[in-house]
């Protein structure tokens, strides 16, 4: 089973494809920064801006009675008389009206308890054993954001340092280029998801970016290693040796990506909802990462 990727012939197509992906991501980031209600490059979630998120199930026999979210909200405003969330509250029914999810600005525990008991009066009875409530103060949110950005920068720096020690300049630069390409595209996709589906990113998103960084570089390192090894021993031309090396390590790289994707897919399919977007971000990162290590980074090494 030999693979024959025509890297040399398709160099322009590969670079063009990546350019389009990057432009698409940048477009999302710019659109999100200037043209959305939140005016940020990406839709920051609860973890970073603070707030109150509540998910709770209703107790129903057979089927849950239907409520329109607007009427429930109307009712809540009426009974709560708490100005904090009168204008700024989102409510959704999911799972055949069984599951209620609510977002409000930051509430104290007391206010949140009041909200839940009011909710119980309107659409109850509620199953308190199924409660999932998160209250995050705005101060903590800001701190978490700085924390995440710092960890990202520190670890990118550490990875860059490691790569530049291990490879000579040209290889190191290209490996890093591939790394930023991967991160930018995953970030861009989530910018778009924020614009279109109001998907929010939380601290786990930062974790996924960090993990992608480690993984993507790992893949590129393996292929570059093979190229270096072959350039020393093989007598074919420079470009041909690169293409050969990529084909030699193609199986290995795709297989390792597949075995990493399989567990992630099982989390997406069977795991808890709080891990859904996290696993999706990781999966995207691994797909883009293997593409950039197999096709993009070696193509950039080719001479004209």
């Amino acid at each position, binding site marked *: 089973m*030999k693979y024959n990727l025509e890297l040399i012939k398709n160099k322009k197509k590969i670079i063009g494809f990546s350019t389009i992906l990057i432009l698409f991501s940048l477009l999302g980031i710019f659109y999100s920064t200037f043209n959305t209600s939140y005016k940020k490059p990406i839709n920051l979630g609860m973890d970073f801006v603070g707030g109150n998120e509540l998910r*709770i199930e209703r107790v129903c026999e057979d089927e849950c009675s239907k409520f329109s979210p607007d009427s429930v909200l109307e009712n809540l405003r009426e009974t709560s*008389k*708490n100005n*904090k969330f009168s204008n700024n509250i989102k409510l959704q029914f999911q799972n055949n009206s069984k599951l209620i999810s609510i977002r409000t600005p930051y509430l*104290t*525990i*007391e206010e*949140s*308890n009041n909200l839940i008991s009011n909710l119980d009066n309107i659409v109850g009875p509620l*199953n*308190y*054993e*199924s*409660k*999932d*409530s*998160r209250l*995050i*103060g705005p101060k*903590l949110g800001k701190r*978490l954001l700085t*924390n995440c950005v710092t*960890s990202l920068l*520190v*670890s990118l720096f*550490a*990875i860059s340092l*490691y790569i530049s020690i*291990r490879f000579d300049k040209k290889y190191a630069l290209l490996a890093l280029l591939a790394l930023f390409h991967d991160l930018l595209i995953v970030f861009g996709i989530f910018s778009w998801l924020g614009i279109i589906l109001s998907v929010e990113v939380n*601290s*786990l998103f*930062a*974790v996924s970016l*960090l*993990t992608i*960084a*480690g993984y993507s570089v*790992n893949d590129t*390192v*393996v292929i570059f*290693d093979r190229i270096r090894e072959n350039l020393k021993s093989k007598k074919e031309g420079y470009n041909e040796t690169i293409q050969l090396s990529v084909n030699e390590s193609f199986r*290995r790289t795709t*297989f*390792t990506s597949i*075995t*990493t*994707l*399989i*567990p*992630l897919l*099982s*989390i997406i399919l*069977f*795991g*808890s909802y*709080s*891990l859904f977007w*996290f*696993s999706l971000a990781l999966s995207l990162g691994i797909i883009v990462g293997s593409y950039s290590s197999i096709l993009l980074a070696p193509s950039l090494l080719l001479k004209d």
Partner: protein
Amino acid sequence: MKRRQGWLFFIIFLLTFSVYLLINYPLQLGLDLQGGSQLTLQIIKEEGKVTRDELEAVNSVIDKRVNNLGVSESNLQTLGADQLILELPGEQNPLVASRVLGKTALLEFRTQKEGTSSDLKSLQLQRLSIKELIEQYSFAEKSQNNDNFLKAIQDDLKNIEQELNYSSTSNDLYGKLIEIKKYVDKEIANLFTKTDLSGRDLINAGRRQEQTNSNWEVLLTFSNSGGEKFAEITKSIAGTNQLLAIILDGESISEASVGNQFASTGITGGSATISGNFSAENARELEVQLKGGSLPLPIEIVETNTIGAMLGSKNILKSLYAAISGLIFVGIFMIFNYRILGFVSVLSLVLYGFFNLAIYSLIPVTLTLPGISGLILSIGMAVDANILIFERIREELYDGNTLTRSIDSGFQRANSSIVDGHITTLLSCFVLFLLGTNFVKGFAATLGIGVLISLFTSLNCSKTILRFFTTYQSLRQKNLYLPRNNFSN
């Protein structure tokens, strides 16, 4: 061969030991898996950084308060330089804890300044009317068609605000009422001068129900020197029209006169009671706060997570499904592509799972949802190394080498690139663990541990198992290692 057999026994020993550990020391589950509440407390300091000593001091006060509250199996730990995390497992309401922990609880005894009698009287009257309004409000809140009722309360409140020459900033009516009450309590406290008697002079606190009505009072017991100070202070104002105020966090909670009969010795006996119309709950909260002492720095509750018990067990089940199906599909993929080699990697994966869990119970690592996702993800990464090795073995086999030679050089040549490739992932984990929040740390820990253990299982364990297999003649045919249709090239 002898050496390999030694490894085989070592691996079997490790496996037995892991199972023993897991049976005797079950895994610790995080709150997102067993249900419960988690509160993050932020220490507030206006200038400079919170020192280690201050963090320790706050920690010990909070610890005492939590213990006195009687919550079971709570867990308090520091996070970074200026945060504490309190975990309350099970269905315990975080509300009471938050009320008791959030207060500084600085207790002071103050004596009234000269010539403030009339000011005090009018403030006390206003406090009384606000208390009444608060009671009316909680009644109105429960009744229907309460618009007029609430309107009346609002008007009364406006009048009081005018008299006080103070306007409240809260958004809602209840908040306003509470704010005004605080303001009045503070104003009253300002009419008194500080003495050197404070909460530090207490050795104990208690509570009991007043005999005449259903209200509660809080009992204070002073240390020896505290008792002397108290006698001194009460002696100095006994029989005058000066009052003694008990101030908590800058707000007066009770003002009392000292009778003429104490003019010669003051109130001796080293104890006092505060009777400020406490409800049973309020009295208990104050008791707990006073027993624990006052906080050296104020704290604020910045995060509260609550997970119901049912949701927790659902999360366990879902994670189990995800982990097992991930394992099965990775196994199928490996056996399909690598035959016996794939089967070897599945066996090492199972070992890998046991070793990981054993390490969790040994360290111990508290298992959380992100932690589990780190573990599941590391399954994929653990196979990485196997794939690298197997690809090398295949190449050697294609080149016409013997099976034993191919296996040997496959493991040898892949060694360095495997170790190398895992370094970047370990780097990321390390940074995450140092800088991450509690939530993120769980992921970094399990992924990092996983990557380290996978080095052992995929290099050593799979080699040992493979060597063991190849001692059987029937398992040494090349076509068991290479898919048949490709064997011809």
